[in-house]
């Protein structure tokens, strides 16, 4: 579906992402874990086009998209969420989601924004994320938990084939986590999902494959069981906190 080859990003003297190769498949949730500063968010920014890579290729449906601007990747079906909620804060939840639908709807720019197809798709995304009740609220006034859900709803509303999720659970309590974990499992059925997450319980519960990063490099990739039992990973990372 989407594959990175030797993806590298340098900030001055720092190699934030160093030769990362990984493959996301439809129907599979691929988690990326690693300590702070391991390069996980930079990896998402490289895949989504927020940042241009210093070197390496990104193959999406057979095309190298590494030089594409962010909007073109969004247009092609790569959706993402942001670690820090990044909505149009002065607009309603529905309008935020509707704009996401509009980007890939193919509906003419000079048709009414209230086109029923746009509204229905937006409402569907809100329904799937459990935000229907907050549709009219201004995005800037949402609770933290709702704002995290809106991030997912907006990514989902564009009907992407690839979902890049940057810490969707950051800062959430256990009762807020459970429905999102269910949602993640659900999303993995019909999307290629990349999940960056710190909560190891969640990662090992939902991921089909796990990549461990440290200092910009891939330390190991494997199924959750293999990763959990890998001595190298335990030394480098899991040992510190878990």
């Amino acid at each position, binding site marked *: 579906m989407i594959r990175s080859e030797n993806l590298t990003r340098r900030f001055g003297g720092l190699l934030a992402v160093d030769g990362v190769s990984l493959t996301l498949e439809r129907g599979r949730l691929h988690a990326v874990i690693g300590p702070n500063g391991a390069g996980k968010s930079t990896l998402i920014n490289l895949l989504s086009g927020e940042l241009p890579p210093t070197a390496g290729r990104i193959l999406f449906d057979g095309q190298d998209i590494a030089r594409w601007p962010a*909007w073109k*990747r*969004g247009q092609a079906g790569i959706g993402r969420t942001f670690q820090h909620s990044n*909505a149009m804060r002065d*607009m309603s939840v529905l309008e935020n989601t509707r704009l996401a639908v509009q*980007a*890939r709807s193919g509906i003419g720019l*000079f048709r009414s924004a209230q086109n029923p197809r746009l509204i229905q798709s937006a409402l569907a995304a809100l329904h799937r994320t459990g935000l229907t009740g907050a549709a009219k609220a201004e995005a800037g006034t949402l609770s933290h938990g709702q704002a995290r859900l809106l991030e997912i709803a*907006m990514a989902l509303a564009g009907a992407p084939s690839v979902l890049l999720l940057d810490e969707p659970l950051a800062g959430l309590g256990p009762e807020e986590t459970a429905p999102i974990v269910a949602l993640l499992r659900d999303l993995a059925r019909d999307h290629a999902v990349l999940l960056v997450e710190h909560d190891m319980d969640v990662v090992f519960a939902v991921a089909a494959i796990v990549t461990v990063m440290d200092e910009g490099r891939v330390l190991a990739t494997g199924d959750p069981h293999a990763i959990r039992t890998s001595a190298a990973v335990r030394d480098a990372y899991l040992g510190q906190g878990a």
Partner: protein
Amino acid sequence: MIVASRTGQALLGVAALAIASMPFWASSWHMQLVSTALVGALLALSLQLLVGGTGLVSLGQAGFFGLGAYTVYLLGSPPVWIALPAAMAAAGAAALLTGTLALRTRGFFFLMTSLAFGQMMFFAFHDTGLGGGSDGQFIARPFLGFALSRQNRPAALLLANLTVLTIVYAALCWLMGTAFGHALQGIRSNENRMAAMGHNVQRLKLAAFVLSGALAGLAGHMSVLTDGFVNPGLLDWHRSAEALLMILLGGIGALHGPILGAFALTAVQEAGSLLTDRPRLIEGAVFLAAVLFLRHGLAGRRR
């Protein structure tokens, strides 16, 4: 951006009717004054598409305004049905050219770049003989379809300006309700997120910039029609700043804000030159007061 409520639109309609009835009761001088305000409103409305509509604060709008006016002059004052589209096309083309470059920058840089391009157009007419030099020229007004006499001219021009402003305002009300208009609003609110979702932000901004430039050119055309002269002062960046003030006075978050602001500023300027021999003192004080105290504009909406 807020399109006025139904009551608001009705009030605007009543105001438009009141202006339309001026030939029956007002003096030529008053009609000319209102014409000036209407042309100012048209310019400020064109800029509002960028400022309130897209979040682009440009200081070069007078360049497109003046270019529209000079297009009429350079074509030798053809009839309105040629002069008007030509002025819009010329200003729109200039906006396409400068916008392609200026929109490579953001925020502060965009502001400065738009100002520099506006001044470039100013110099093009100020330093060369192209448009009659730095003193400007009186020119024949484009033919409206019927002969203008000294008696019917103020009324005819007033109605022409009112008609054009009404059409442009209605068109922008419609535009802001389309997918395009909503996308511009999204860009104003959070450009990066819009791009991440797959909106071609650069192209949308350029489209808004070109449309805004063409509308400023239209305003310039109406200014020539109203005043019958061109001079480089039409492109002076002070005019761009005044258009921004009209938006701030009227309310940056409302589509009809610039119209209110244009009337308010024209009234202040007129009162300033009637009451004192230092009109800039009054204008400067109003700017200062507006920016210090009137943060929501006459329309009461900041966003």
